[in-house]
């Protein structure tokens, strides 16, 4: 029987000729990604058990991102723990504060993770890297500890959901709107334990940044990971990072591969979508209700990339963030920050009255840099709108594309970005 991409990778990395969904396998991990929130617990567990070693310091990537620069002494200690371990064990790939940014986005940009690789990390959005044709998934600190120690992780081979996307996005509609629509259709646990494999002409025509947005949010549908097959766009993206085809293995799903679910989406029918509180599946067309916002947030591993910042700048150019709205823009990495500065985007953000922050997870997870207070209403380009996610449990979080966030920031209420596109200076 044919296999999917995910099944082929898991078979290869577990030393099996083939695998079937439901099978428990012990898998080699090509990469272990570590940040400062879940890694210190893993290290403590290993130390307590006298398992204080790493399987290969060259296959571990460490990027502090959640609570850095530290906002209090406890956070500073966690950062110190990660950093001292990195130095003690000779971890080769360390992207310190000022050299990194959000771990997932740093990683996608390094060329380290390659098609056919396996990647685990103590972070649910590790699935982001699936856009490169790798099998990447989030785990807890115990699994992380096990992977650091042995380079191995157990998996139950997941079933796969095939998502076929055809047609062309209308202006103002983006991959974020696509993934919010899919999660709306299948539900926040609609892909529970499944791989979400994205195919179709819309995906073929999509740049890598858009694909990362899709795979990043697999976890928001309960998915084990998202994945996109390698094509010319992937190869070019890797080549630009010095990765040559002999360094990776491309897998394609067989034509007779078995899918648990197949869904079909017409991209041309999509509208700018906003996920209402308190679950990412609660999508409605942007601007359906006139909802006043107090906060607008652009950033996160989902949508803090350069193309996202360009979309935001196109709308903010020559305009102002509405009075009473606190807008924060967080470029996902140091490199994106620099690129945005070179392109003049920073000036546009600052002139519009937005606050530009340093590369980090920022306020996405309610730890620092823009935590929401009681009854605040935030429109955010991030991935999760659970109760208390960004701060006080009474705050309301709406998820949307960067363009929708920008349009809403200007109007002061949740708005359709198409009202700004091609209708004024924004698109000029």
């Amino acid at each position, binding site marked *: 029987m044919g296999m999917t991409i995910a099944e082929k990778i898991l078979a290869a990395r577990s030393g099996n000729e083939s695998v079937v969904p439901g099978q428990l396998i012990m898998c080699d991990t090509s990469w272990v990604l570590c940040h400062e929130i879940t890694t210190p617990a893993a290290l403590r567990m290993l130390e307590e058990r006298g398992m204080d070693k790493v399987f290969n310091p060259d296959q571990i990537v460490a990027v502090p991102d959640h609570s850095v620069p530290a906002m209090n002494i406890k956070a500073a200690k966690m950062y110190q723990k990660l950093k001292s371990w990195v130095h003690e064990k000779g971890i080769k790939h360390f992207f310190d504060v000022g050299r990194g940014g959000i771990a997932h986005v740093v990683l996608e940009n390094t060329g380290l993770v390659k098609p056919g690789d396996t990647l685990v990390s103590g972070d649910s959005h590790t699935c982001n890297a699936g856009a490169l044709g790798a099998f990447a998934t989030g785990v807890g600190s115990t*699994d992380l500890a096990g992977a650091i120690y042995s380079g191995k992780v157990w998996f139950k081979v997941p079933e796969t959901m095939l998502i076929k996307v055809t047609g062309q996005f209308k202006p103002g509609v983006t991959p974020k709107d696509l993934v919010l629509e899919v999660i709306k259709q299948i539900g926040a646990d609609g892909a529970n334990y499944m791989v979400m494999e994205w195919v179709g002409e819309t995906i073929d025509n999509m740049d890598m940044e858009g694909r990362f947005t899709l795979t990043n949010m697999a976890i928001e549908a309960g998915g084990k990971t998202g994945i996109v097959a390698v094509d010319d766009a992937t190869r070019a993206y890797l080549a630009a990072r010095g990765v040559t085809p002999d360094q990776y293995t491309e897998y394609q799903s067989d034509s007779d591969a078995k899918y648990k679910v197949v869904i079909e989406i017409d991209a041309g029918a999509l509208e700018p979508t906003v996920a209402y509180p308190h679950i990412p599946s609660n999508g409605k067309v942007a601007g359906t209700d006139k909802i006043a916002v107090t906060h607008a947030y652009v950033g996160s591993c989902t949508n803090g990339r350069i193309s996202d910042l360009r979309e935001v700048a196109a709308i903010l150019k020559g305009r102002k963030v509405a009075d009473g709205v606190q807008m924060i823009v967080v470029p996902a990495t140091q490199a994106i920050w620099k690129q945005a500065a070179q392109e003049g985007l920073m000036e546009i953000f600052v002139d519009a009255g937005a606050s530009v922050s340093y590369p980090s997870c920022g306020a996405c997870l309610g730890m620092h840099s823009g935590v929401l207070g009681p009854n605040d209403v935030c429109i955010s380009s991030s991935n999760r709108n*659970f109760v*208390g996610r960004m701060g006080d449990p009474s705050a309301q979080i709406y998820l949307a594309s960067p363009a929708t966030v920008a349009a809403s920031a200007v109007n002061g209420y949740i708005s359709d970005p198409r009202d700004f596109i091609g209708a004024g200076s924004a698109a000029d």
Partner: protein
Amino acid sequence: MPKVHVFGRDHINTDEIIPARHLTTDVESELAKYAMEDYDKDFVKRVQPGDIIVAGADFGCGSSREHAVWAIRGAGVAAVLAPNFARIFYRNAINNGFLALECENIVSAFQDGDEADLDLKAGVITNKRTGQVVTFVPVPQFALDVQKSGGWLEYMKETFN
């Protein structure tokens, strides 16, 4: 006899089980003080060692933070029963030897405060008030092996040292 705490909503997420503002510690007894804080801030005052949580579907969705398992276990919870669990929470439970039991009609079988008898070997939970017996999906052998070893790291240490 353990008491049952019913959190009947679907999609109770790890942000509600242990909010990010408490993630600057990974000490179980510290985390336990805040278990379920953003869902029910009085939960830790009511819960007793050995108690059971009964919850709606997709329990533990969202963040991969294992702190969610540690927080409720630290608060005294011995098991969570739900129709199904989010994937990472479920494997975190297995790795910690903590009981996350899949049970389709569990929410309607209990009221908050009911006493229950959990029989792992028989794979059933009995509501002592109503006498209703509910069957749950047997714990996978792999999970039992991990539990027997004392957790995933102990299992791994034995297997891959």
